């Protein structure tokens, strides 16, 4: 159970209750709801209802921001997930046929132990933490998301990467029959991403399984996605099926699609503009019509933790 003693409940701990209310309202608006089903048991009853299982989550990570998290409804209705479509609402609208379970993750490449694992085995024994992170999209909007996940380092270390493992490559599932954006070929799928081994092992980097104490909805990258909070959102690859340790820098989908606009590192940087728009400020989602943009921070406000990873690097060149 998630909620602790009545006396010391933080706002983020109360939220899972309201998540269900918001979700029900969201579904009613979208015209799906059939009644009080969503308040029923907390276990998956009907996939079409998008009911989400609760996760056992430990809170209070020192890496969490105390900024107010975005509403669950905003987080699940405003997504970039081109596997389902280009529009921000497409992933919520068009991901109903996607089946995040059963799920396997393949680990291969430069490691002593490799193989294909059922997701439950892959994460077994690892406590799921709440990490309230800022998320900065390359499109100059941002959110604050209470992720539930596991530090990537904790999941990768048991595979004993060799000294030749300089990078970690990630791959999204390829299921055109369930993902209309893949059928339309909106990008060169499967989506691939990568990190340096130091970035992958950094304690801020997590693999998320949930938000707000419930498992990830399909549109947010179910059942397993990367979260790298100091990088633009597109680095945080969704619905991961393969993790590979590599010696060479792996290809990444957006840098292949538009090499002038998107680089391998994609660190949030207010001083390096996108060729077509400024990155100096961002719109924080959830403020309604009259919220002014806020200044974007170096490394999305995580400079203290990650700047040393890039010491001596020309961030204008390595954007």
């Amino acid at each position, binding site marked *: 159970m998630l909620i602790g003693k009545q006396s010391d409940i933080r706002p983020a701990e109360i939220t899972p209750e309201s998540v269900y209310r918001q979700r029900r309202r969201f579904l009613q608006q979208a015209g799906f709801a059939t009644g009080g089903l969503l308040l029923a048991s907390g276990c998956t009853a009907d996939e079409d209802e998008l009911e989400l299982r609760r996760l056992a989550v430990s809170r209070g990570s020192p890496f969490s921001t105390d900024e107010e998290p*975005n509403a669950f409804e905003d987080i699940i*209705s405003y997504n970039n997930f081109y596997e389902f479509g280009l529009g921000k609402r497409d992933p919520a609208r068009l991901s109903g046929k996607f089946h995040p379970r059963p799920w396997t993750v393949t680990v291969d490449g430069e490691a002593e132990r490799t193989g294909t694992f059922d997701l439950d085995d892959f994460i077994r024994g690892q406590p799921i933490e709440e990490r309230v992170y800022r998320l900065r999209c390359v499109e100059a909007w941002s959110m604050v998301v209470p992720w539930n996940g596991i530090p990537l380092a904790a999941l990768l270390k048991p595979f004993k990467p060799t000294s030749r493992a300089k990078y970690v490559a990630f791959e999204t599932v390829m299921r055109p029959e369930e993902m209309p954006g893949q059928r339309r070929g909106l990008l060169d799928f499967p989506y691939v991403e990568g990190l340096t081994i130091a970035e992958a092992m950094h304690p801020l980097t997590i693999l998320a399984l949930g938000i707000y104490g419930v498992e990830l909805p399909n549109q947010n990258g179910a059942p397993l996605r990367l979260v790298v909070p100091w990088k633009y959102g597109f680095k945080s690859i969704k619905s991961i099926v393969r993790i590979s340790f590599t010696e060479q820098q792996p290809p990444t989908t957006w840098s292949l*699609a*538009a090499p002038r606009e998107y680089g391998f590192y994609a660190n949030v940087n207010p001083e390096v503009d996108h060729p*077509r728009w400024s990155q100096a400020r961002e*719109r924080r989602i*959830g403020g309604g*019509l009259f919220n002014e943009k806020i200044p974007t921070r170096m490394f999305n406000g995580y400079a203290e933790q990650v700047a040393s990873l890039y010491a001596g690097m020309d961030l204008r060149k390595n954007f």
Partner: protein
Amino acid sequence: MPAWTCARISRRPVTVPAVRRLQLIGKPLLFVAATAPLAWLAWRTAGHAGGLGANPVETLQDELGTWALRLLLATLAITPLRRLLGWNRLAQFRRMLGLFAFGYAALHFLNYLWLDQFFDLAAIVEDITERPFITVGFAALLSMLPLALTSTNGWRRRLGRRWQQLHRLVYPVAILACWHFWWQVKKDVTEPLVYAAILALLLGARLWRRPAARATS
């Protein structure tokens, strides 16, 4: 190309009641139809019908811009349609459509100035001078301004032949508007491509008709 004033149309062998009926019903109908997208946006802004979503400023920006482009193309469709159908009375709707296109474009720009940039002059100047897709969109809007201002009968009389020449600006405006949309999208250009194809068709129809028009005049 002659100016299709009502006076000219009424000299044609068309029954007067039909023309009157069209004027009495057609223009108000068009006015309501062209106002409807704005009313729908206002309704959603007030929180109805699912609202404007998680990023309302972006929704307004996209919707207002798209409707400006649609109405601009509708304005440009009048002449080819009129020729194709031989339905000259369509010409009387062109000015209203053009003014609505300008109106939506102006609101699109106002939304950018106000809700997107909060009148941050430095940021706006930087955008217009350094971001090509914004430069192009701004040029399109600026070029529409003299067309909107000289759209009255009075200005049309005063400018005479030059009115016609001035209003040919609508062609580069439409090209700039499509270009603005094209450069704005992140990856998939299907939607801008559809608008550009329609524009190409509408401009092509004019080129294609020109020799024939000359032959008959």
